[in-house]
């Protein structure tokens, strides 16, 4: 990563003043809410320690991190993920994409699966949305996590009509329950082609945004295989454009997937019309 050796005082000035002394520090809390952001982020299986996150904040391209907050098939234990971790990394500057990994498509081998019965699947989706909401509150997200974006991780599955119908109803339940006050912003993560986003676009009430894995190396969220350009086109897309590789910053190596956002993140956004992620 190119770094300009501009250490001269003329370019970067030292502390000017030490100012007010406050008697009682205000307790930090992770704000509820979210907004559209343009920029790069990464995700990794287990939340890194806060010192690793600090090393990955300073002078790196990454501005947000994907965090697996829970669910029956969350792959990695999360010994670091606490309300303190959320606060600390937010103070470091990070935005978050919060991921829930519950039951998967019925036509898969995952250890927890959705029912083929569409009515049951719909209720399962609602149940998962409630669990995700509770997890957000348990992580200290304030204001009842109103407006906080949360993403359901639906891994890829075969092209099977009954399987697709069950998943679609399940995700309708996810969307509908998250829409109940205090509503969260509903997202779905998955393989751009094999999680059948093209089907999700036809849902009665589609997810508010998508996060598509499309490992083509192109950070542009406008370019997604198997997803129509007109779908989720108003700052409603995240893209995982490179998977499974190691990167090192500040002496810390992490195995990551590389992502771009042109869509909502927690707790705040930040639009950038010139971003390569657009």
């Amino acid at each position, binding site marked *: *990563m*190119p770094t*300009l050796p501009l*250490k001269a005082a*003329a*370019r*970067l000035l*030292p*502390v000017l*003043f*030490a*100012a007010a*002394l*406050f008697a009682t*520090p205000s307790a*930090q809390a992770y704000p509820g809410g979210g907004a559209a952001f*343009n*920029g790069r982020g990464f995700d990794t*299986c*287990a939340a*890194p*320690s*806060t*010192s*690793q996150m*600090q090393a990955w*904040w*300073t*002078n790196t*391209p990454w*501005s947000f991190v994907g965090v697996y907050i829970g669910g029956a*098939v969350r*792959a*990695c*234990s999360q010994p*670091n993920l*606490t309300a303190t*971790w959320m606060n*600390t990394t937010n*103070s*470091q*500057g*990070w935005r978050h994409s919060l991921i829930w*990994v519950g039951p*998967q498509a019925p*036509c*898969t*081998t*995952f*250890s927890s699966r959705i029912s083929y019965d569409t009515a049951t699947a719909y209720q399962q989706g609602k149940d998962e949305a409630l669990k995700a909401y509770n997890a957000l509150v348990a992580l200290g997200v304030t204001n009842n996590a109103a407006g906080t974006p949360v993403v359901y991780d639906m*891994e*890829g599955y*075969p092209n099977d009509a009954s399987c697709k119908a069950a998943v679609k109803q399940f995700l309708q339940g996810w969307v509908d329950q998250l829409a109940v006050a205090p509503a969260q912003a509903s997202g779905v993560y998955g*393989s751009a082609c*094999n999680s059948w986003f093209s089907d999700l676009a036809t849902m009665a009430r589609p997810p508010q945004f998508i996060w598509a894995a499309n490992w083509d190396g192109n950070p542009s969220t406008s370019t997604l295989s198997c997803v129509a350009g007109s779908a989720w086109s108003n700052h409603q897309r995240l893209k995982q454009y490179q*998977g*499974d590789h190691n990167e090192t910053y500040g002496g810390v190596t992490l195995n990551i997937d590389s992502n771009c956002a042109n869509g909502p993140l927690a707790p705040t956004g*930040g639009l950038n019309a*010139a*971003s390569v992620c657009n």
Partner: protein
Amino acid sequence: MPSCFSLPPSAIALALLAAAPGVHAAPAAARLCAAADVQASAGPAGAWRGQATQEIRIRNTGGEACALPGFPGLQLQPASEAPQAVGASEQAPQLASSRIELAPGEEAVVLLGTPGSCEAANKPARRVSRRLQLALAGGGIKALDGVHIDTLCGRATVMRFERVQGEGAARAAAMKAAGALSQLTGSLSAPDEASRGGTLRYTVTLSNPTASPVSLAACPAYTQSLYADGKAIDSTQRLNCGAAGGQIPANASVSFEMQVQVPAGPAAGNGKLSWKLDGGPGVGKIVGLH
């Protein structure tokens, strides 16, 4: 406080090194972990990168450091089929020889994966192994029950093998290295936007949530940086500790006003501001540069 600013960065670095003994407990030449040295436990069965996963955690329960010269030899023990060896995934063959040293109490994690979907998965039949056998390079075998590894769609491989970077251990190490500064928390207040070629002024607040004062008498160093358009400018300076009274009282906060010259060169877009107290908290913000 001119005296607080007089040390060049190199002197600051030397001073910090002198004050911060090594914190990594495991020696470089630890003996290989044997079955008697470790405890293996089954973590969650999950979904990641399209794979159905099973996490295995290996904790050093012995009294001294030991090493894993790669993930242990792994063998699935299906109830009604022949045992199946588990190798590294094609994407990560190096994991078979990635050495991990574990101090007493430390953990490594192994993540196994099998393909999560295939046409055959549309039928009820499954090929689930509930038992796994681990062969340790230092000798001995561990049997682990309670795993869920379904090989219906393909064989199991190791996707991940690494030492667990626990927050608790990291905090303890930071405390040992830097003392009370690691107990401070920080926040940063800066405008949402700044002009290229202008000056960005912001405030850093350090808070002491403990019941004891935290001394700033040594004028700790901090590093400030601004990253934009693939380029960074950064600098290490001393904190103006004298003006803060030399300490942060218990349950109190002190704010420091900062400024950074925004380079004119980067294209308009988002910049990342970072401020990190040596041995203490780091804070940052995304600032739109126009």
